[in-house]
């Protein structure tokens, strides 16, 4: 049983590694850029204000990246990181579909839907 799934294990492993490395590189690049530009500013995390709208949604972050804002680029890296396990679930959806394993196809589709719904921000009240 476990050995039959060896191929899937390896594919998932490659996907997870690639995702984390890509995400970390984008975060690092955005971070260096931000610190070169604004490294001398004093950060204030003592009082919670919440992030500005542009850093709170996938669409907002993409617009910020198009405008070349370093903070948006870091946030894009973090979004890529969040997307990595979601892509992993997507991959298992395909794998179970190919095997005609209907129970697990239904389970993985359910998890995938919940994850995409959560990240999309649909269904949340604004505040």
């Amino acid at each position, binding site marked *: *049983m*476990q*050995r039959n*799934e060896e191929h899937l*294990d390896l594919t*998932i*492993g*490659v996907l*997870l*590694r690639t*995702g*984390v490395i890509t995400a*970390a590189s984008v*975060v*690092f690049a*955005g*971070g260096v850029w*931000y*610190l070169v530009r604004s*490294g*001398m*500013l*004093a*950060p*204030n*995390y*003592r009082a*919670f*204000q*919440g*992030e*500005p709208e542009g*850093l*709170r*949604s996938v669409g907002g972050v993409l617009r910020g990246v198009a405008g070349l804002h370093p903070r*948006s680029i*870091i*946030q894009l890296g*973090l*979004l890529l*990181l*969040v*997307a*990595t*396990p*979601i892509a*992993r*679930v997507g991959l298992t959806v395909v794998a179970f579909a190919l095997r005609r394993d209907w*129970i*697990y196809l239904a*389970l993985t589709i*359910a*998890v995938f839907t*919940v*994850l995409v719904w*959560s*990240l*999309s*921000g649909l269904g*949340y009240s604004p505040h």
Partner: protein
Amino acid sequence: MGSLNSLEFSLLVGLFGAGAGFLGALTGLGGGVVITPVLTLLFGVDIRYAVGATLVSVIATSCGAASLHLKEGFSNIRIGMFLEIATTLGAIAGAFLATRIPTSSLGVILGVVLLYSAFLSTRPKLDKHDAVPAHPLAERLRLDSSFPTPHGWQPYRVQRVRTGFAVMFGAGTLSGLLGIGSGALKVLAMDHAMRIPFKVSTATSNFMIGVTAAASAGVYLNRGYIDPVLAMPVMLGVSAGSLLGARHLSGTETRILRMVFAAVVGVLAVEMIYHGLSGRI
């Protein structure tokens, strides 16, 4: 530490993150457990920003560790996928709860969970392979499998599927509430309730943590808890540290380190509870 500029702050937080990631990977407690207390107690960061940054770093370490375990053949993808239904729903519920309860209560709950995790990490781990009859639900879901041992592939049978599923919902809720991986509770559900061998439980837990955390990340992002400039050094530091830690996994000195780290986690936990109760978080 209000006088630091962003560059100094990032370097310092990155160093702490690397240390936490290294010890977390080495001891199996996970790096995330100490990041939120360190950020709030030492750096004076609001717990909501701290939780947002920690959650992101948890995804990175979990994915990194999971890719290592997958090569070894310990992870059980079916068990992981089945239980992820419970953890993702729990995580979203927990993340919504986090936006509604006072931050001082969050601090106290985190402290209690930390104490319990530290206690669990000092418990001896036994790989029991009792001959047990198959559980009907486990059979239907084909959860039973085998794992590699020095004497070849050892089969195991999954027990108490419903109890495990319920505990997993709780683990997911705590993960979403506190921005942690809840690895200790996940392992407890699998190895204690479901009688899954410890190595399989640990590997499968790592496999699930990323998905659980990704479920609550959406809520955190939407509520403005994820600050890129704070999350950047935390994520990079913890990832680098845990990568190094995972390479040094086998060694006799890990037992002493495990006790030391458990003690550090215990002290941070008591501080979190004290600060929470006195309303300073």
